[in-house]
């Protein structure tokens, strides 16, 4: 975390990607009224675009820099996994603090109950961060990690993103969203438990 903070370019790249996405979509939709579903999609698209550069800043950069061996020798696999998870979660919180106000300013205000947004943002963050941390860990040790990253991430990420968009749409329309939240929570918990277990198996060859 300290290394990333001092380097800063990982954080800056993430912020830049997220801000540019919101700004570009705002410009493209100037004068057009976006449907609620589109608004929900744009919101999560901006967050995802901001999070993607972080995929390479976690396990993959440790492998490429050669520092992964230090971690393997020194720390328990579970500590490494949850440490990286925490790093991604911190980035998610920073990104949210910047992107959400920007989205409200440039795209559309976030209508609906504030507590519903808070729950969605919390669960969505845990889910997204778990998927991205797991995918980074799965491909970091492989030779063709670039190509594999897309192949592994897409099927794991898509259900979570679709559920987040559905829940966001429901909040915006003031419809009950418990079913979507249950789905997000269930998927997030399953992935979290599975990810920690899988990581224990793959981290030390």
């Amino acid at each position: 975390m300290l290394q990333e903070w001092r380097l800063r370019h990982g954080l800056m790249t993430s912020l830049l990607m997220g801000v540019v996405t919101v700004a570009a979509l705002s410009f493209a939709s100037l004068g057009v009224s976006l449907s609620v579903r589109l608004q929900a999609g744009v919101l999560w698209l901006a967050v995802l675009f901001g999070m993607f550069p972080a995929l390479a800043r976690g396990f993959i950069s440790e492998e490429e820099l050669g520092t992964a061996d230090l971690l393997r020798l020194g720390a328990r696999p579970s500590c490494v996994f949850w440490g990286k998870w925490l790093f991604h979660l911190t980035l998610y919180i920073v990104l949210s603090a910047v992107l959400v106000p920007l989205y409200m300013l440039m795209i559309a205000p976030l209508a609906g109950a504030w507590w519903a947004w808070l729950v969605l943002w919390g669960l969505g963050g845990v889910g997204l961060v778990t998927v991205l941390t797991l995918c980074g860990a799965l491909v970091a040790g492989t030779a063709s990690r670039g190509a594999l990253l897309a192949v592994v991430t897409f099927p794991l990420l898509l259900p979570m993103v679709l559920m987040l968009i559905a829940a966001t749409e429901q909040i915006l329309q003031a419809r009950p969203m418990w079913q979507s939240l249950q789905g997000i929570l269930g998927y997030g918990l399953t992935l979290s438990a599975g990810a920690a277990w899988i990581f224990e198996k793959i981290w030390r060859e």
Partner: protein
Amino acid sequence: MRYTRRVRWVLECDTLGKRFGVRWVFRGLSLRAETGNVVVVQGGNGSGKSTLLRIVAGLTAPTEGRVILRYGAQAVATRMDYLGWCATDGALYRELTAYEHLAWWATVRGGTPSREALLEWLARFELAERAHERVRAFSTGMRQRLRLALATWGQPPLLLLDEPDAGMDSSGLALLERVLYEQRTFGLALFATNRAEHARWGDLVLEMGA
């Protein structure tokens, strides 16, 4: 595991082999070393010195054979907890200082050493004066000293050194010789080197690719 210095540590490599694709780097390698031994691993480039040390460390799985570290008659379950590792290509965090590296390493190894203890340890490796400089400003030799400082922290019973003499000046080499000498009193070491004159630092020589 709590241990005393009266019980001996024993490293056993039993018919080890490693294959990358269709090429065997080495095969049928057996080795036994115990407390007091420094095994010098020699051989040309690509002979498998680094691969052997990575296998012993548990960082790479052997294709065949097994590695056992024993404390007396008892085999330890997690070798990684009992070894120190220093490799020339072993990366350090460029934006962290030498002190931060050692503090982090000491913490993940389960200790809570004082600031004085950490600085004292860095001083042994002539790094105390630059303890708070970031590693990116370090020369090759200084980075190597830091790797050695990390590897020997806590006096691990098994010390694995992969070409630690590369890029070292004369005082660095003297330091390395002292590290190997001291290691004999509480454990054993595997020391891979390309420099034939450093074979005298060990008491067993393993010639790879022979």
